[in-house]
């Protein structure tokens, strides 16, 4: 090259005009980056768009445009090309409350409201204490009064009449409230230095975890009466509840054990050196730390417990799934079972999704350090 100074290039008339840089923010840039980054990406985007174009209009037409929303005559649904959401409008009382007496449904609504309100309160860290556990026990007592009746002028309703969403929520709360202490006890037992206690806990945990929940429920509901004297009868809902608690306890125990193992040895040794007795050490030093560590993992078990409440429909209880199956025995509406199941699908999704979002929040919260 020549000796012409480089700086002169910037002088007007001496350099060619360069195009402005490509924008790196805003919608067009975003689309370019995330949808049409390279050939590979572009092809995939076009394929997905084509697949959506083929499926979405049809589905939308079926679910919304051509759907029948409210009618009490199934013939209207037969005539329409779309979904028959009228089955939900027609049967929602049975699906949500099962065989509970129709004029007592307000009690069921109260139970649902109470349990949801308590759950929301429980999500705030500032309420986390043993007191909250006590509040839950009180909630269970109030719920039992509302469901059983027979006092305060409420009409008596036996557990055989329980059903729908209240039963699902009661099963869920009962499982968690009863199962958490069992899980802690089993986990402590598994780490016990007493061989007999340890063997018993290991056996119980491993056997329960090795078989399907439905066999545990089956044992609890159909076998249990065989093993107790004839004159002693235990309520069917209670038996299913015991089965659910045992199963939750066995799974929860392994999670809690993980937390116990994660506590540094020094904590145990310091407690021993300070002369604390076993339960003092456990309650004041070990468990408060261990339980905090395992909260995210326990949340997974709790969500699973919610999903597993559906299993009681197999042993003949009328939870939301069982009640829906009963509602669909009506031959007039049986054709529209998929729509009814989509409805309870959404119902369960709302509960589980909010719990899983909350669990993610707690996990992030814990990951940021010891801030509570």
């Amino acid at each position, binding site marked *: 090259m020549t000796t012409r100074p480089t700086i002169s290039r910037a002088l007007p008339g001496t350099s060619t005009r360069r195009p402005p840089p490509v924008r790196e923010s805003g919608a067009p840039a975003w689309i370019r980056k995330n949808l049409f980054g390279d050939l590979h990406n572009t092809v995939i985007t076009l394929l997905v768009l084509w697949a959506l174009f083929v499926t979405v209009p049809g589905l939308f037409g079926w679910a919304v445009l051509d759907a029948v929303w409210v009618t009490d005559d199934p013939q209207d649904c037969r005539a329409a090309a779309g979904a028959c959401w009228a089955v939900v409008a027609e049967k929602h009382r049975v699906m949500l409350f099962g065989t509970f007496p129709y004029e007592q449904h307000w009690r069921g609504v109260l139970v649902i409201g109470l349990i949801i309100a308590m759950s929301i309160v429980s999500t705030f860290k500032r309420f986390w204490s043993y007191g909250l556990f006590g509040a839950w026990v009180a909630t269970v007592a109030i719920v039992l009064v509302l469901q059983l009746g027979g006092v305060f002028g409420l009409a008596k309703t036996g557990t055989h009449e329980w059903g729908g969403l209240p039963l699902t929520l009661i099963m869920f709360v009962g499982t968690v409230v009863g199962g958490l202490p069992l899980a802690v006890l089993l986990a402590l037992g598994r780490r016990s230095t007493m061989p007999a206690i340890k063997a018993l806990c290991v056996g119980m945990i491993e056997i329960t975890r090795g*078989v399907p929940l439905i*066999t545990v429920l089956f044992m609890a509901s159909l076998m249990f009466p*065989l093993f107790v004297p004839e004159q002693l009868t235990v309520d069917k809902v209670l038996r299913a509840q015991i089965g659910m608690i045992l199963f939750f306890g066995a799974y929860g125990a392994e999670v809690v054990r993980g937390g116990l193992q994660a506590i540094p040895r020094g904590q145990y040794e310091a407690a021993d050196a300070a002369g604390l007795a076993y339960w003092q050490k456990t309650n004041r030093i070990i468990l408060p730390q261990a339980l905090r560590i395992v909260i995210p993992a326990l949340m997974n078990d709790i969500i699973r417990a919610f*999903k597993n409440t559906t299993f009681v429909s197999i042993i003949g209880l009328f939870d939301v799934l069982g009640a829906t199956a009963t509602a669909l025995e009506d031959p007039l509406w049986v054709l529209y079972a998929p729509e009814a199941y*989509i409805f309870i699908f959404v119902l369960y999704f709302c509960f589980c999704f909010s719990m899983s979002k909350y669990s993610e929040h707690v996990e992030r919260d814990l990951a940021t350090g010891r801030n509570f």
Partner: protein
Amino acid sequence: MTETILSRALPSQGVTRRRVPPRRPPMTLDGLWNNVGFRSVLYQVLVIGAVIALAVYMIGNAQTAMDKRGISTGFGFLTQEAGFAIGESLIAYDSEDSYLRAYAVAIVNTLKVSVISVFGATLLGVLIGIARLSNNWFVSRLSSYYIEIFRNTPQLVQIVFWYTLVTRMPAPKQAWDISETIFLSNRGMVMAWPAAHAAWPWMLLAFVVACGGAYGVVQWADRHRRRTGRTVPVLWWNIGLVIALPTIVWWIGGAPTAIDVPTLQGFNFVGGMALSPEFLALLLGLSLYIAAFIAEIVRSGVQAVDRGQVEAARAVGLGRADLYMKVILPQALRIIIPPATAQYVSLTKNSSLGVAIGYPELFNINNTITTISGNTIECIGIMMAVYLSIAFSIALVMNVYNRAVQIKER
């Protein structure tokens, strides 16, 4: 000074007085109660005693109840005639066969649906897990929707929903068909299938052998590269091997080409390979649900691989395929396998949900046998034993595999 202290410990010096061991405190009830060893033994004796007492009491109650109903105990009933039919089975069975054979049918059915679902769930799960990590916004979003929807709804509701969907399909006469080879109707799915011929099993065997051989070739090539530094291109040789060996066996076996195409006769299809609505619904329910969990496990496994590893691989000039096969996959697998094992066990156990839609799996058949024979305790024992051994076998196999992929540290 130091010497005197040392000398104290030496026995022969005679400097130190022999110390008297501390006196044991006198045995009192209070002292005994405060003795940790004694209390531990006492608690254990009490717990074992309580468990044994409870067991004896409960078995006694069960015995009385059984005697009252005139049910004989023991496993003798297994050889008696079952007297009930089973909807579908891979092994020959009719209602005149024994209970034992009915159990065998049930176990085979449970294993059949579980094994196929495990493959389906793994394939779909890995695909969605990788899609979740895609740069493409659509792909990543859609797979995240899939994961959230299927993970956050009960599996039983999903199974029942698929079942209602399959049974609401049109009757066989108006069956949906895919190019006249696969037919979907309310009787399930029927597809064209190669007609039975002696050559097919051998061809399958040849395929398995070829896959084993291909694995051996890869291992040899790897050793060769380590020894000499030269890469042997084995991919095409292996593809050739996997295709050629079964083809040769097929040709030697008589080259059967007959295809059994299902045809409509009366109200249902005849011929072809038929999958019942119950099987289909359970297959979908098991594999789609577990796939969502596998996808999350795969995603977190791949994300857990250290960024530095990827950068280092790029820095030494590894290609895209080598980056995935030799750097990311081996490290991600270590993280993926333990939780994936738990999912496989869970899938197999949840095949018992087939009872809700009438698929003849172990739990379902066991219920029938319990009701007919009345040998409740024996039946529940058999069922528990089978489920436990399946769960433990999966855990065992996966543990062996897990050990194989773990880091071999020197």
